[in-house]
């Protein structure tokens, strides 16, 4: 069975990809997979280069990450007690970042099966980024979903309607400051299960 080994060609392709992007590349990270971060104003042109020059024709997905830690934790706080102290620093992940929201997309080369995750910072004030739906036709629906979940506007997108949520929904659910309403209504007792089992024993505190 021919198994395309992903290490050898990858090393040469990494250099190829970085060279193709040139100075649009702001940061990169390579650990089994390749993460790239490009300049905000060069988002669409970078994706175009990746598609045309490097041959990443296959569009896997596009979404966003909100790097702010959730002020609600995991919804396990006792509502009668004051809210605990939480870390609120925004720390981005691989390939760095400077803003709270990042849009990331993953594209693959169908011939060599090398793929890359491309991240881009979304400016905090305008929350707008170029749309790549004319570069990758599949990005149309992914951008719609990202818009309704995060509130990021995509410049040039023909039709930013809600996809999953009702048309008049207010708020952007996947943002960290939008709480999970079910946990607001009834906090989860958390990892320790204090209710006795039907036999009368106290359950142990772990999941297996």
């Amino acid at each position: 069975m021919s198994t395309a080994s992903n290490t050898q060609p990858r090393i040469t392709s990494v250099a190829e990809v970085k060279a193709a992007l040139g100075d649009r590349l702001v940061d990169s990270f390579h650990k089994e997979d390749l993460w790239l971060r490009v300049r905000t104003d060069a988002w669409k042109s970078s994706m175009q280069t990746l598609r045309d020059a490097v041959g990443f024709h296959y569009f896997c997905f596009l979404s966003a990450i909100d790097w702010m830690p959730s002020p609600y934790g995991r919804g396990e706080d006792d509502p009668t007690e004051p809210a605990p102290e939480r870390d609120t620093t925004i720390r981005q992940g691989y390939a760095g970042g400077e803003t709270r929201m990042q849009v990331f997309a993953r594209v693959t080369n169908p011939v060599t099966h090398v793929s890359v995750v491309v991240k881009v910072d979304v400016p905090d004030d305008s929350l707008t980024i170029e749309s790549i739906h004319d570069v990758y036709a599949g990005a149309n629906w992914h951008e719609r979903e990202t818009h309704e979940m995060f509130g990021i506007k995509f410049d040039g997108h023909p039709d930013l309607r809600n996809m999953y949520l009702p048309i008049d929904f207010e708020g952007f659910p996947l943002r960290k400051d939008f709480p999970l309403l079910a946990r607001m209504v009834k906090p989860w007792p958390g990892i320790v299960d204090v209710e006795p089992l039907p036999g009368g024993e106290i359950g142990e505190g772990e999941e297996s």
Partner: protein
Amino acid sequence: MTMLGDRQQLSYIASQAADARLNLELETEGMTLNIGPQHPATHGTLRIIARLDGEQVVWAEPACGYMHRGYEKLTEVRTYPQVTTLVNRIDWLGSFANEVPFILAAEKLMGVEAPTRAQYIRTILFELSRIANVSLFLGDLGVQLGAITPVFLAFRDREYVLNLIESATGGRFHPNFDRIGGLKDDLPAGWIDETRAVMKKLRGFCDQIEDLLFGNEIFQSRTRGIGVIPRDVALQYGLSGANLRASGVDWDLRRDHQLPMAWNKDDWKVWTHPDGDSFARCWIRLQETRESTKIVDQLLGSIPAGPVMAKVPKIIKVPEGEAWVSTENPLGEMGYYVVSRGDLGPFRVKIRSASFNNISITPWLLRGVYVPDIVTILASLYFILGDIDR
């Protein structure tokens, strides 16, 4: 595996053009038809808004979201082992296959690899869930086109596979069997022989379906040349799985990705078809089912002895990092992008589901087709609502 004839394609296009001309001449008014969300044809609550002119579609758009459960938000409040339960329910027909990429991503972040025995059993169960999923597709294909008999055969033979999964994992539909570091339990006694017997039955079922459905002239005339997706459009929209292979792209993540699973330990073939029409998609899934039974047979003969669970702490804390793992699920490419902050639970999980991309091509694909062909195309693209809506 014969290819689509040019005459057939031309005649279909000619009839479409003739109809369009007639509609224009008669100045008929269009009719907006809502297919779904409650409808026998859609696999779940999918709504397709179609503007028709006579029997031709002028414009069609799926409106999904009737089953949106907010999985990505829910994963942020759960611990890693709890996410497995959640994720089972995305593609509920082949549910073991949903757990695997997530578990592999968590293991990648932790730097843990499951023992070889667990890898083999995971692969076998993965292929069994693929067989369960696609055998239902083959039956359902008949119903969408009007042949009411294959679906009963499909359900009958699928029962054997579900019984196997139940005896190994305890759950027919939602096994919840994968754990970070391995599996929950070992296989029960006698399971291997039972599975071998079931694989033989399933090969018989595939032959039956091929005779009953694929060899039928009416089926061929209903599916050949319908919904042709060219190769570059398929890649751009991110179609995956059998849909992509039907357009001639040689793409199978089981072979191309280096994952700690047992796919590359045995001999099997990747099926492609140059046509890109509905028949190609259906035919490839049939062949893939057969291929899966062969994979299972080979793996059954070579499961190594050993533990099924690696040494993993009781309370699982995954170190900081980001990981992406995607596998060749029954529906296509399913992947999880897990962002971890060193907590008990993930910071963000992006679920890349295959059917979302597969359905995103329908506005482009459904223009100009006839109403019966909407059903044929949707049936051949094969989606599960839980996969689209998450």
